[in-house]
């Protein structure tokens, strides 16, 4: 038995824009970027980051989980899903990058010190800390619980995976999205790759100089019609309508120059949603502000959508939240469809002559009931999600 329609019955988000969807919408309306120096940990790196306005976790190394639970609880609350309905038919599918690694410098420093016996609490947290498993245990979900580790497309791929779980009848509801914390290890890593900007990032701008790291979580509660009706709730207007993924088979860290993998992912997502490119009210682009990403992505968006479809990148508000990005940006896309406008693409000022499209520079009303969100990742992963809303 397959449910062809998958509803979004709840949204939850935390990022540098704030905690919760309403705070996020207010921050978008004000158009303020919240980048600043790293304060969560010690580092000699001075590039700005986008930290969530949320206190440092009381529990070391649990920040990603805690961020994720903030978004997950908001999504569950918004959906009004009774606790007794969370069980064997409830899945959890979440993307992350930081939470899947034992990158605890205190433990490792002690390990390297032959005279010391490193405490094993960091190891215990790691071995018991698989993100999806931990969230599933916390909320009492006993269906499939899977952590997707597809680098920066993890969140989008997790949502796409969850969409298919419901379509194939494996679950009635799935908490899906992504979460990642600001962490010294990826900060050093992205710096080593030479793709971090010394200033606040400028997605798609002619003078962009790279990305800023951010943190947060974006979670959607996806649900079948049968499940929603069985608990006596009204069918939501928002739907997860399509998902596409395709690989570059090109390079470990650079996108394929012709963007063929991304284009394939977008066209598959559109087919999956049974929508034409011109039906998209807007495109929420990955738009990291690295020279390579924005050139390749902009070229693909120009080829698929022309220059009539509004595009934006929200990285100028949140930074690049890595494994969380696909989840956070899916929430943003759904919110924009619900509200009927998209914010200005923060950081963009000057059109790049090598990119055939340009993002919006001011708050822009949108017309239409469907939008696309893209994600590109190390390893040549490309993912696209189509989100739809019923006509008013």
């Amino acid at each position, binding site marked *: 038995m397959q449910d062809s329609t998958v509803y979004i019955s709840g949204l939850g988000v935390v990022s540098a824009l704030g905690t919760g969807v309403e705070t996020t919408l207010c921050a978008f309306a004000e158009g303020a970027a919240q980048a600043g120096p790293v304060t969560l940990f010690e580092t000699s790196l001075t590039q700005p980051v986008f930290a969530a306005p949320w206190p440092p976790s009381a529990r070391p190394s649990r920040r990603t989980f805690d961020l994720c639970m903030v978004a997950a609880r908001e999504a569950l609350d918004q959906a009004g899903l009774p606790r007794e309905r969370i069980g064997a038919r409830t899945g959890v599918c979440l993307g992350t990058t930081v939470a899947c690694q034992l990158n605890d410098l205190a433990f490792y420093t002690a390990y390297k010190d032959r005279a010391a016996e490193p405490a094993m609490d960091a190891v215990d947290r790691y071995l018991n800390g698989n993100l999806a498993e931990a969230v599933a245990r916390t909320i009492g979900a006993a269906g499939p619980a899977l*952590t997707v580790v597809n680098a920066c497309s993890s969140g989008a791929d997790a949502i796409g995976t969850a969409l298919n779980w419901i379509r194939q009848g494996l679950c009635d509801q799935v908490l899906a999205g992504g979460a990642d914390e600001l962490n010294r290890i990826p900060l050093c890593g992205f710096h080593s790759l030479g793709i971090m900007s010394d200033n606040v990032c400028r997605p798609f701008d002619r003078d962009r100089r790279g990305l800023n790291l951010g943190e947060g979580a974006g979670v959607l509660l996806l649900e079948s019609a049968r499940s929603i009706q069985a608990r006596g709730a009204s069918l939501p207007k928002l739907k997860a309508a399509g998902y596409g993924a395709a690989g570059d088979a090109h*390079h470990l860290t650079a996108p394929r120059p012709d963007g063929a993998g991304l284009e394939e992912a977008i066209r598959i997502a559109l087919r999956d949603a049974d929508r034409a490119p011109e039906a998209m009210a807007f495109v929420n682009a990955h738009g990291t502000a690295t020279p390579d990403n924005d050139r390749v992505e902009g070229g693909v968006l120009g080829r698929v959508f022309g220059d009539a479809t509004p595009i934006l990148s929200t990285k100028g508000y949140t930074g690049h939240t890595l494994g969380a990005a696909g989840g956070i940006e899916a929430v943003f896309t759904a919110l924009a469809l619900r509200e009927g406008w998209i914010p200005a693409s923060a950081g963009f000022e000057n059109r790049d002559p090598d990119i055939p499209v340009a993002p919006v520079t001011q708050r822009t009303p949108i017309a239409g009931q469907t939008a696309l969100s893209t994600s590109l990742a190390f390893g040549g992963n490309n993912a696209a999600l189509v989100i739809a809303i019923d006509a008013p």
Partner: protein
Amino acid sequence: MNLQGIGIVFSGGRGLAALDRSLTGAWTPPVPLAIPERDSAVPAYAIPADALADKTALKAMRRADRFGKIATLAAWDAWHDAGLADLDETARARTGIVLGSALGPHVTTFRFLDDILAYGDTEVSPTAFSHSVHNAAVSYVATRLGIRGPALTVTDFHFSLPYALLQARIWLSNGRCDRVLVGTTDELGTVMGYIARHKMRIPTDGHIRPEAFSSQPAAVPGEAGVFFLVDHGTTPGTYGRIDKVAVPDAEPDTSPTDSLLYDANGLLSDETPYRALCAEARERSTDCVSHADRFGSVPSGLSLHLAAAALALKHTAPDSAAPLRRIACVKLNGRGQRATISANRQP
């Protein structure tokens, strides 16, 4: 899903012949895994260095880490075992890859941490960082084999293979892919060896005993890379057909099953639940076996058991006195959940 190809790299060597030898030969004790930082060693089922030497399969992978090489060799062998060396570009675009792993490329993560500790935040190696990302291995597999379909890397401590196969089945059934390379990789390293020494009950004789169903099971760290090539085509699977992937598996399996392979490898704190599982199976005249003592405690050891099942299905003559028709591979996790993968011989 038809099972058309298998690639395997493990402590017994590389390839199905090595797997066959390991399963049918005398038990082989583990070897010492040195932990130089601690002037000690831990017994382990480590992949021998010569099993990872292949200049053809690993061409242009000079900078790849060991995790990526293990995964690529296993995927390469599954691909070629399935006879896909000459597949055209269009068909490769309709091929997916799913890799599951419990812990990912942790050796490379620690190498990156070494850089930070030695050189500070500003002078670290971009190569170590890019390879420490979990999906780097799949990038190598995709690039090496020219696969441009969807690629997914997932992590789960006990159920990485069932979840990977679940995704493969979805791509095949919804028409996204015509075939999927699906597998697992878990590697050993000195830090994990140290952690194993503290967290595992490592037996003095190096022999783990899955059949003991112990409440305090023994474990010996192990590593392996295993890939399967699965498709939905009309050509029967060389190694049979996977007819069930259930994770978590809450329903009793009522299909007649000749053999149940259970991956009780000492990584659960308590293995007594396997006793009931096997007792129930034996009541239905199903033979119960675990090969974990041959491979060691590989978190994704269910892959090795599925490979063993596939090999048995292929090699047992249908006209033998007790032909194998269906084998179930099962594993439990720390939440008391069960995952089941069943393979059968196709008519």
